């Protein structure tokens, strides 16, 4: 279906994971979209940084937890998760509060590498400039 076109797709996640359905349905697009062999990046800004926090437990709110899916994204060839530094800081979070999302680099003898790239707000803006399709959730 892609007819050989490869575009840079950015999924921009701005919302906390369970208060609204945006995060879950964004992840559903990401997983389906992975079959199209595009150049995919994910970005997490504003309350979107909460999507990547570790030790999420949704039992009390009776909702399906989906935080572990982020750790499986590497198997779908999705290895670039940009996290905005200022958004973390504004919410009293550090990288230690986030899951250690990794992928196996098939071009480097399947070495385990970190998927999360911590960038400043300015760098996030520059990265967005280079994208062809930005889907914001």
């Amino acid at each position, binding site marked *: *279906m*892609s007819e050989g*076109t490869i*575009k840079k*797709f950015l999924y921009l996640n701005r919302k906390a994971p369970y208060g609204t*359905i*945006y995060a879950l*349905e964004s992840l*559903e*697009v990401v997983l*389906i*979209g992975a*079959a*199209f062999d*595009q150049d995919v990046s994910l970005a997490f800004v504003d309350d979107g940084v909460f999507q990547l926090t570790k030790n999420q437990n949704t039992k009390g709110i009776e909702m399906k937890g989906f935080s572990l899916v982020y750790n499986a994204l590497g198997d779908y060839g999705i290895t670039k998760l940009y996290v905005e530094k200022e958004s973390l800081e504004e919410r009293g979070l550090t990288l230690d509060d986030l899951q250690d999302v990794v992928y196996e680099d098939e071009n480097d003898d399947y070495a385990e590498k970190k998927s999360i790239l911590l960038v400043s707000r300015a760098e996030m803006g520059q990265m967005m400039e280079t994208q*062809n*399709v*930005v*889907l*914001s*959730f």
Partner: protein
Amino acid sequence: MKFSIQINEGPYQHQASDTAYLFTKAALEKGHEIFRVFFYHDGVNNGTRLTVPPQDDRNVIKRWSELSKQYNLDLVLCIAAAQRRGLLDENEAKRQGKDAHNIAEGFRISGLGQLIEAGIKADRLMVFGD
């Protein structure tokens, strides 16, 4: 230019569908092409034919149906989002054993791959939502 449109919010609650409609209509009138309009999240509620808005207000759903007829617009409701929210076409109602279906004229139900394709095929994907 070739545009694709993504609408993430339901009718009346949010202006996204209104703005997307006015943008789409203006683009078509200027001779641009709309590859597809894709309804996601609560946006799928723009495709129910059972709304009865007050007569002195705009009819958001009917407006999309009419625009689709006039320009042969491809209006797609995401199937996963639609099923969660009770939007079913005749086939899906039968398949799921439901006693009714409610898709408005000009809309069709399909998968998320249609959104990715819309991003690939168009020059610009415009996202309308919160």
